[in-house]
């Protein structure tokens, strides 16, 4: 992943429009930002927090990537992969920040590929298997609504790097939430079969939501997310279910049996060929 120079190669403005179709004007969201941990911020705490947010993104990205060649059609496959790549980008920046802040000097690859399942801190909702398209959509709706609420607040973080990562992320997450909400309405208000699957998916996702809200100290996030979920369900002609929350949290290292196989696939190549470059 030696793409550090990719930005500079692509960010040059081109005089002619001959290359417009390939896209130009890329920029590095962290360009020029001081990476020193600011005065008054606990480096270990900041590192652990960035690690957890990075884990949510990496595990979600991996699940979304599993849709490649399996999505309902080519356009949705591309859409889900795009969302996964947004999240992978967030994970990379958050891991890099985690390694800087906690003083361990670990880089993004160390953190993504060389930790065992019990060391991961992602919420359990992210690691659940993809299920059907309805489950993937409802999970994406819940995770992106929650992450958008969290990132919106993080744009005011005392850590300038985390604030910059969040500022970039909110635009991506707003699209993810919009994409999921459009599909949720389409499926809920669609055929009898799509509606049945939506109802089941909401019942499967709902028990994991309390874990998301408990992961943040800000108490208004839960209300904000619930309001979004109720609104989308209402548009779809459905009611967001009331369920008993599942105890436990991935933030404490408590995971489902689904995380280990996911990581085995994700980490296999990097562990078989340590230091491999491509």
């Amino acid at each position, binding site marked *: 992943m030696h793409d550090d120079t990719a930005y500079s190669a692509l960010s040059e403005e081109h005089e002619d*429009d001959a290359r*417009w*179709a*390939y*896209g*130009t*004007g*890329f920029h590095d969201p962290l360009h020029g930002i001081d990476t020193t941990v600011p005065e008054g911020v606990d480096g270990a705490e900041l590192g652990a927090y960035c690690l957890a947010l990075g884990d949510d993104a990496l595990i979600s990205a991996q699940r979304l990537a599993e849709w490649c060649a399996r999505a*309902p*059609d*080519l*356009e949705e496959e*591309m*859409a889900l992969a*795009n969302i996964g790549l947004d999240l992978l980008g967030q994970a990379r920046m958050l891991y890099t920040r985690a390694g800087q802040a906690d003083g361990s000097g670990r880089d993004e690859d160390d953190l993504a590929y060389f930790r065992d399942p019990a060391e991961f801190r992602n919420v359990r909702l992210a690691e659940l298997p993809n299920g059907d398209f309805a489950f993937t959509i409802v999970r994406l709706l819940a995770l992106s609504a929650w992450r958008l609420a969290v990132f919106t607040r993080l744009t005011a973080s005392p850590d300038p790097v985390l604030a910059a990562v969040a500022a970039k992320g909110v635009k991506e997450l707003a699209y993810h939430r919009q*994409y999921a909400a*459009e599909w949720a309405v*389409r499926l809920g208000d669609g055929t009898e079969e799509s509606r049945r699957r939506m109802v089941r998916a909401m019942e499967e996702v709902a028990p994991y939501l309390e874990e998301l809200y408990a992961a943040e100290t800000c108490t208004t996030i839960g209300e904000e997310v619930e309001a979004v979920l109720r609104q989308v369900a209402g548009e779809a002609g459905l009611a967001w279910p009331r369920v008993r929350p599942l105890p436990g949290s991935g933030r404490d290292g408590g995971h489902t049996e689904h995380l280990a196989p996911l990581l085995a696939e994700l980490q296999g190549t990097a562990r078989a060929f340590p230091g491999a470059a491509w």
Partner: protein
Amino acid sequence: MSDAGTELYEVFVRGKRGLNHVHVGSLRAADPRMALTRARDLYTRRNEGVSIWVVRSADITASTPDEKDPFFAPSGDKVYRHPTFYAIPDDVPHI
């Protein structure tokens, strides 16, 4: 994949320094909003665009190859239609 319930749409993207929307391809979608979302995901992944139009392919009325000569050949020899006799000031862009 099934095409059931979907229609073909043509996608036009305006680049950052482009003044006009340019046809970039087509896709299938169930409704215009889905077409727009899919166009965003399929055709603007590499930072190409600032605006997207989608149009139902069926709504486009096009000239046919049979009409090529009567349509276009008559203008082939009328060079005087080009405004080559005017001096264009250097500071007027986009002419």
